[in-house]
């Protein structure tokens, strides 16, 4: 088919013009290819909910013009959707726990909120959500404050309560305002499943304004479908930024409630490391959601996760958090070297502690990533 078409000639056009056009097109292609070569491609990988998209949004806020009003407005429906989804999960969760748990009484919603709960649950199950009015917000608020729901929330790791739950529930009044325009922070917290691939191109401008590096960041969805089919399209990326939410060691997957999230992350990381297309790629491991990790470690021991079963706490408080973090870091490090064949040991591999919601931290972290990649370039060019 293709060859047939190309043999067609437009005999009515003078040949000179045609050659001129072809030459111009070729020149343009050559220019673009050259320009492409200087663009460093970064690929965000990680399991669902690991914070990839939050990092993506942060980069947009930091190095591009941020979110314009129109774009902010477009997040209103997403924020409201998150609110409905959250309260539904909590409500249904409390009913489930009331049925299955021995101490069922603490999960039974008070009679005042019972009907409200049923109604909200129904709304949350629809495909299209209604506008978040003040009345609805009040009802959601009172249900949120119901002791049964709070008890359920404390067991959030067993259900699929999203990490933004607390933040949105505490801001219901503002979110339901008639003229509500999402803030930057709201946008960072907003949760929507990434489908397909999104990309942005940016140039980090630091104190050293001559940096001039151009990066293109790709964010792909996190779920487990058909990864192996498209991963090779990213051969030749400069670096993989692998996000791992270290706070999820006691949580299960959205797609499979019997699978521990941390184990899933472990498997994915292993798989990615072994891909032939990433033989020479630098790996930046973001151990994300450190703020949630910090709070969780005090109450939930690390060894509930099979991978961390040999963890021994040594102290308490801040010191223990640090100790736990170092342990997790070491586990990932071990995994990296186990999954890396000797001929790939020259790959750059660095671990960063991140809290994707903290813009300052992300900026500092990215500054380090940028420095590492620039040094790597110099090294490969033989200049270091």
């Amino acid at each position: 088919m293709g060859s047939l078409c190309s043999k067609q000639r437009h005999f009515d056009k003078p040949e000179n013009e045609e050659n001129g056009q072809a030459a111009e097109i070729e020149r343009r292609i050559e220019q673009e290819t050259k320009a492409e070569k200087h663009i460093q491609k970064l690929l965000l990988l990680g399991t669902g909910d690991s914070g990839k998209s939050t990092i993506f949004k942060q980069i947009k806020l930091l190095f591009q013009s941020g979110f314009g009003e129109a774009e902010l407005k477009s997040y209103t429906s997403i924020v409201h959707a998150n609110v409905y989804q959250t309260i539904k999960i909590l409500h249904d969760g409390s009913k489930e726990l009331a049925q299955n748990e021995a101490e069922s009484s603490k999960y039974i919603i008070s009679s005042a909120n019972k009907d409200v709960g049923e109604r909200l649950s129904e709304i949350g199950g629809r495909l299209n959500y209604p506008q978040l009015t003040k009345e609805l917000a009040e009802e959601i608020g009172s249900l949120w404050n119901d002791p049964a729901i709070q008890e359920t929330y404390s067991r959030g790791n067993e259900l699929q309560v999203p990490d933004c739950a607390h933040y949105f529930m505490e801001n219901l009044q503002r979110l339901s305002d008639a003229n509500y325009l999402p803030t930057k922070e709201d946008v960072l917290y907003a949760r929507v499943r990434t489908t397909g691939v999104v990309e942005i191109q940016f140039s980090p401008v630091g104190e050293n304004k001559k940096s001039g590096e151009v990066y293109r960041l790709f964010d792909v969805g996190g779920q487990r479908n058909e990864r192996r089919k498209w991963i090779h399209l990213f051969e030749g990326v400069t670096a993989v930024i692998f996000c791992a939410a270290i706070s999820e060691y006691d949580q299960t997957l959205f797609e499979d409630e019997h699978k521990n999230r941390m184990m899933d992350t472990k498997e994915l990381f292993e798989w990615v490391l072994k891909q032939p297309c990433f033989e020479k790629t630098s790996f930046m491991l973001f151990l994300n959601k450190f703020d949630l990790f910090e709070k969780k470690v005090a109450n939930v021991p690390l060894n509930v996760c099979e991978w961390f079963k040999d963890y021994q706490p040594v102290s308490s408080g801040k010191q223990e958090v640090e100790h736990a973090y170092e342990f997790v870091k070491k586990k990932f490090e071990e995994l990296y070297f186990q999954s890396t064949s000797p001929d790939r040991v020259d790959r750059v591999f660095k671990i960063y502690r991140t809290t994707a919601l903290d813009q300052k931290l992300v900026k500092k972290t990215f500054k380090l990533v940028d420095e590492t990649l620039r040094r790597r370039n110099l090294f490969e060019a033989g200049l270091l």
Partner: protein
Amino acid sequence: MGLDVGVGGQVLDLETAVKDGILGGGGGIGVGGGCGLISTAAAEKLDLKKMIEELEAVEVPSVFICPISLDPMRDPVTLCTGQTYERSNILKWFSMGHYTCPTTMQELWDDSVTPNATLQQLIHTWFATKYSAMKKRSQDVQGRAIEVLEILKKAKGQSRIEALKELRQLAAAHSTARKSLVDNGGVGSLSSLLGPFTTHAVGSEVIAILVSLDLDYSGKTNLTQPAKISLMVDMLNEGSIETRINCTRLIEMLMEGKDFVSENVSSLSLLVGLLKLVKNERHPNGVIAGLRLLKAICSHESLRASIVSIGAVSQLVELLPGFKADCIELALHILEVLSTVPEGRLALKECAKTIPNMVKLLMKVSESCTQLALAILWAVCKLAPEECGALAVEAGLAAKLLLVIQSCYNPVLKQRSAELLKLCSSNYTATNFISKCKLTTTIQ
């Protein structure tokens, strides 16, 4: 000053004479701030012997040097020939029965020695001037170091890096600057700059300064925090060769701290980075630094399996033939320590080059190397006597062992060699074995 020196008919004052280098003192006396020459009285107070000692590196004018000892004179005396010598030296010359002038070879018509007061004062003054200049420079350096340390507390970005670079230069060139830094809380300040968000540019400068300082217990403890060591490990993997060596040396220094636990250096990235250093034959300094740190890490039993897991054993074995003597000893030491754990023994056995390389090293480099190589061979052969014993014999082990037994004085070595010989030969009949050994006729 009032001391006039007649040089070739010209009358100069001492200050000019010394300053302009008439006496061959060279430049460098130019001291600012009007501290040109110290008065004779003050100079007298400074002990000449001490000054000469401290100014050892400085080039002393030839006229101040005793022709006998070639040292600066403290008590110059002149003979009747007009030549001047150090009193004790010329008297010793006389006591040996010589009554000649050592330089002119003339016989002395007068055995009196006249103290050369003028020369003595000149020497004293010259040294005093040099000494005070040095002291001032040193003070300047000390002062500057403290100044820069203050600047560092507030500087950010590029100015921080500039301050660090200056501090690095000062510390590298002057021991007084180093002491000054340590005495003024420099270690703590520098240490506080190291953290999870430290850029490479800043980190590499800080490490370069710290590694040149004398770190005390609290300084080392401060630096042994996981986040800081993590940073050092990162720089060890990414930096220039100089930075890599600095990080390696600094970690080695920290390991000497009392509270050091093996966990602090258990990072696989560190071990992999060290192995890379060791393999980089273009930089012998890096090889030695890497080997030394690996040796220190090996001393922690819990870390030996990790070291083996990154393939250190086979890599070290294969590097041995290319190493110089000091590296060979370090590498053998590491391998021997690793052979004390089962993973290490297995890795040694599985590496094809272990036995031939060890056999080659017997009696080749030094006694301690021979001892280490023997221990390694023993560990491997004990693991699989038939298989390894055969390989060892094929590699010419027997002849070497006999050599050890014959020529070594160390009874322990002799015993070990005998045992090893027995172990390896246990599968052969006597005649078979001897033929396999390809021994020279004399030994046969």
